[in-house]
């Protein structure tokens, strides 16, 4: 699936080279009833910074920064640790940044200032009714079909995609088509991934051209009309923004909900607590974001820099798995325990620093509303007997084929 593992650069001391990487390390490969977060948590017992060969999709190795305090230093310093990697474009043999993620400070801030107001905490409150309506209609449709379902396929993924479509100004009649592209993009063969990526790009390009001619009141119209320092945005800039919007809110929100349902299905007591007292859901969602985050930000050093006594050379990649920072005992008391009413919770599920997830406030509302409506409408659920969900590590941790069962008969057993 992935490119061959590239050789370890000469300047990396042999004793700092690990056999771990996010794709093939222990507990990272797809596994039935897996727990990739617990697997990666074991890195906290090892060196705070080490080198992981083959830690990216193209086979390049990266440094791995394990602890919260060190990750904060890396991610807060966007000039030393660049995120300009053209990940999506390079997979297509092209070169354009996803905006604002792949733009470094100081230029980065003008893009954030343009987009921040669209996804501010206050603005997101206005999106709540539509988010709730989408959650309810998907859950009710699933419920009407029986007492078990693959909630990834029937709820988590279409829910996340339909909010994206709404935001972009596309009717939900195209939901299935988009879910298909999203599925191929995330889980397809390399050929399917590339094909889906091209399809998404050309769809977004067409929509851009359409909205340039006839603006409405949606996101695409906003960015095609926007001006930065008096200049309209170029076609590539609009593409860079809309592609990022599509992929950032897709598997991340679905993965968060998936891991939450996976956990709750195995902890009926906690599930009942949230169902009978929904006010607890907001804190619980934060704790589950701490326990089951899915993203590992990767940066490239723009100069030689020292971290924990180790020299990172200019050009080296540095990975900051949110999963280890979120279980760092120096950052959280009882870090390894899931405490659904934890109050002091400065977790890093949405990263630190200038690239803090722009959509975090919307993602939080999607997760909380998704949990609220699911728990209100679906009785006690568990993993369907005879099935085993597949979890995986990698660039974005996730859970696939999560078959839940809420039949009365099963519950009584």
């Amino acid at each position, binding site marked *: 699936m992935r490119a061959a593992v590239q050789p370890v650069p000469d300047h990396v001391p042999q004793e700092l080279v690990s056999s771990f990487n996010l794709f093939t390390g222990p507990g990272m490969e797809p596994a039935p009833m897996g727990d990739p977060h617990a697997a990666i948590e074991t890195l906290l017992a090892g060196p705070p910074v080490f080198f992981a060969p083959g830690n990216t999709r193209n086979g390049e190795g990266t440094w791995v920064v394990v602890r919260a305090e060190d990750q904060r230093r890396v991610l807060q310093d966007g000039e030393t640790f660049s995120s300009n990697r053209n990940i999506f474009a390079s997979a297509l043999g092209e070169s354009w940044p996803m905006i604002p993620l792949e733009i470094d400070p100081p230029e980065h801030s003008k893009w954030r200032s343009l987009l921040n107001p669209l996804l501010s905490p206050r*603005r997101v409150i206005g999106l709540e009714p539509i988010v709730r309506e989408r959650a309810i209609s998907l859950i009710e449709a699933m419920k009407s079909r029986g007492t078990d379902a693959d909630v990834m396929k029937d709820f988590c993924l279409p829910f996340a995609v339909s909010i994206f479509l709404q935001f972009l100004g596309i009717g939900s009649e195209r939901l299935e088509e988009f879910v298909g592209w999203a599925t191929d993009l995330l889980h397809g063969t390399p050929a399917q991934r590339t094909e889906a990526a091209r399809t998404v790009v050309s769809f977004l390009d067409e929509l851009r051209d359409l909205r340039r001619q006839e603006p409405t009141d949606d996101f695409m119209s906003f960015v095609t009309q926007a001006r930065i320092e008096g200049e309209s945005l170029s076609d590539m800039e609009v593409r860079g923004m809309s592609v990022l919007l599509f992929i950032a809110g897709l598997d991340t929100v679905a993965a968060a909900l998936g891991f939450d349902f996976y956990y709750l299905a195995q902890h009926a007591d906690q599930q009942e607590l949230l169902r009978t007292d929904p006010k607890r859901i907001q804190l619980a969602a934060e704790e589950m974001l701490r326990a089951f985050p899915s993203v590992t930000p990767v940066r490239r050093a723009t100069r030689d820099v020292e971290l924990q006594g180790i020299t990172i050379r200019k050009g080296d990649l540095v990975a900051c798995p949110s999963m280890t920072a979120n279980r760092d005992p120096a950052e959280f008391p009882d870090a390894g325990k899931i405490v659904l009413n934890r109050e002091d*919770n400065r*977790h890093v599920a949405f990263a*630190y620093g200038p690239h*803090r997830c722009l959509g975090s406030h919307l993602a939080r509302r999607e997760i909380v509303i998704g949990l609220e409506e699911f728990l209100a409408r679906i009785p006690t659920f568990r993993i369907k007997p005879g099935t085993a969900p597949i979890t995986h590590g990698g660039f974005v941790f996730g859970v696939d084929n999560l078959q839940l069962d809420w039949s009365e008969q099963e519950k009584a057993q």
Partner: protein
Amino acid sequence: MKVKVDAAKCQGNARCWTWAPNLFELNDEGYLDPGDVNVPEGEEENARRAVKSCPERALTLEE
């Protein structure tokens, strides 16, 4: 009691605002503007929670 704000570190996580919407005012982008925050009586607990929830460690409490 006062909360010292390091506005250069604020990245718009808005966790402070979630815990203490009466204490912290977000600008249109959803970030804190520079300026320390005086904590009136009765808001001390919310202020403590807000400080302890900031992932960037942009807030410090002065008793």
